[in-house]
């Protein structure tokens, strides 16, 4: 398969009687949508020559939620709850993409403290997303105990989410115009403790896996994705960084003040599953670094834009100001309208480039919301990675591609 022919998606299902390299008949195996691997409702139609994978055809859509249509029926500020649930391992990052897009169309800029709080939430989420990935990938490749360690720290992050927003997973914390509310002092205490302790925990995961002979033999040399192919198929996130290309939207197209933080883009030249694992581990360390910096130089000030047409007035004003009551009433019955136009904002999620493209026709509901999801694009590279590997390695490849089916199907 040449590089230019990288799509490889026009596969046809095996004709009866087609012969493999060893003279046997190619066998078509259906893999999913309900299968022992923990990566959601992904269905693969795999053609096998003996144990070797010859063709993979992903069948998706088993988690199609109609989020894009739903958001057309919701008002601008209501749409935030849908963004949480499409890539359900990194809700605040999706919130951020949507919020930045709406703010760019409205032409507002959030205060520095809100930007820093957004960065804190995004990096916490990146950590929890990578922790879920590490734990479930460990289970898939037979390392059961990693999950227990990973979810211990994930629960710490969930507790922090709960402290700052009142909810464990789908925080809806980042909203157009700022954040839900300022963080509590207790949150900062928890965060400081977390930043202090997390590097030691990452060492623990590495102790369990990095030099583990089973883990290494299951991942090294498996699922190779050459750098030039990774570029052509549009891979992003740890997929492209695991192929040695330092492409991180936080660095190349900074948003929400990421240019003020000092961190490295984790890359690895291995191009295989092990390289992607190392990249994610490194990213977790960098995320902790960013959290520490954000905590140290958190600016003071408001956490929301001062725009009564966009955000409700503070509760105490409602009792004294008639104008505030009118604004409150208008916002919660009709909502605000966004000037006509379209905008695309891309952010770096745990999986790669998660973008939000919105079109406004000037009314109080979006005309169109489109999510560019990293998993959807990364999954297209699956066939090229899995070709000529054993069927058991397919699980390792899906695992380290880290597709979230909610993100693929939306």
């Amino acid at each position: 398969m040449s590089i230019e022919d990288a799509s490889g998606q026009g596969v046809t299902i095996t004709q009866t009687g087609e012969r493999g390299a060893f003279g046997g008949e190619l066998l078509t195996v259906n893999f999913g949508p309900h299968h022992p691997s923990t990566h959601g409702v992904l269905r693969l139609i795999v053609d096998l020559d003996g144990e070797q994978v010859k063709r993979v055809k992903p069948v998706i859509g088993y988690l199609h939620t109609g989020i894009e249509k739903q958001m057309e029926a919701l008002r601008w500020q209501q749409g935030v709850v849908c963004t949480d649930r499409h890539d359900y391992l990194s809700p605040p990052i999706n919130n951020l993409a949507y919020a930045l897009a709406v703010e760019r169309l409205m032409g507002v800029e959030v205060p520095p403290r809100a930007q820093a709080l957004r960065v804190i939430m995004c990096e916490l989420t990146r950590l929890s997303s990578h922790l879920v990935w590490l734990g479930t990938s460990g289970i898939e490749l037979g390392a059961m105990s990693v999950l227990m360690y990973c979810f211990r720290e994930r629960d710490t992050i969930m507790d922090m989410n709960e402290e700052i927003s009142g909810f464990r997973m789908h925080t809806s914390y980042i909203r157009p115009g700022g954040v839900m509310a300022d963080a509590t002092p207790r949150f900062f205490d928890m965060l400081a403790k977390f930043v202090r302790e997390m590097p030691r925990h990452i060492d623990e995961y590495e102790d369990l896996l990095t030099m583990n002979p089973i883990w290494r033999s299951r991942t090294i040399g498996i699922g190779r994705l050459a750098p030039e192919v990774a570029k052509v198929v549009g891979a992003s996130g740890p997929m492209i960084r695991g192929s040695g290309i330092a492409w991180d939207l936080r660095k190349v197209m900074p948003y929400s003040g990421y240019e003020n933080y000092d961190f490295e883009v984790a890359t690895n030249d291995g191009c295989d599953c092990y390289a992607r694992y190392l990249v994610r581990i490194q990213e977790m360390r960098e995320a902790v670094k960013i959290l520490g910096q954000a905590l140290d130089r958190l600016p003071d000030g408001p956490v929301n834009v001062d725009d009564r047409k966009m955000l409700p007035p503070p509760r105490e004003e409602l009792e004294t100001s008639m104008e505030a009551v009118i604004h409150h009433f208008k916002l919660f019955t009709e909502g605000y309208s966004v000037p006509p136009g379209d905008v695309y904002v891309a952010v770096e999620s745990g999986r790669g480039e998660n973008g939000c493209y919105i079109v406004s026709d000037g009314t109080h509901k979006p005309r169109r919301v489109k999510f560019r999801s990293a998993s959807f694009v990364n999954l297209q590279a699956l066939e090229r990675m899995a070709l000529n590997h054993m069927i058991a390695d397919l699980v390792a490849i899906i695992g380290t591609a880290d597709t979230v089916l909610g993100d693929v199907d939306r």
Partner: protein
Amino acid sequence: MIAEELITDKGVSAGDEWITVPAPRLREAMAALKEDGYRLLVFLTCVDHLADASKEWPARFELLYEVRDMEKLRDLRVRAFVDGEPPEIDSVHDLFPPANWDERETYDLFGVVFSGHPELTRILMPDDWVGYPLRRDYPVGGEPVEFSEEHETWLTPPPEA
């Protein structure tokens, strides 16, 4: 460089550069842009401008191709307007591999036919689904919710559609 006569309109929307190209010559324009360094297709999608009063639209369906130059760090949005039933446009899956699934998705949800696509089938909805859900005249569906403002319109298309 993309030829001048291929660009019928251009501008900047909220900081994003965009150009409009004539739909029949889309492939030509995309190939020129690829030569120009825009080697990555970020996403491809469609917007249904049915009963959209914000502006005069040349046609009902607007196809959008966001392309990116990863060396010079610039993005460009390419628009093409198509009409008709079914709306039809050339496929670019061989120029930009990520377009393959995006085109299938756009076909699935908007019913836009990409001629030259190797396997233009439904991707997200079940194979036997009728209708194209993301068109504006397709109802949101679901079940009616009592005491909500959308109670009446939830199941039926909007009157102007």
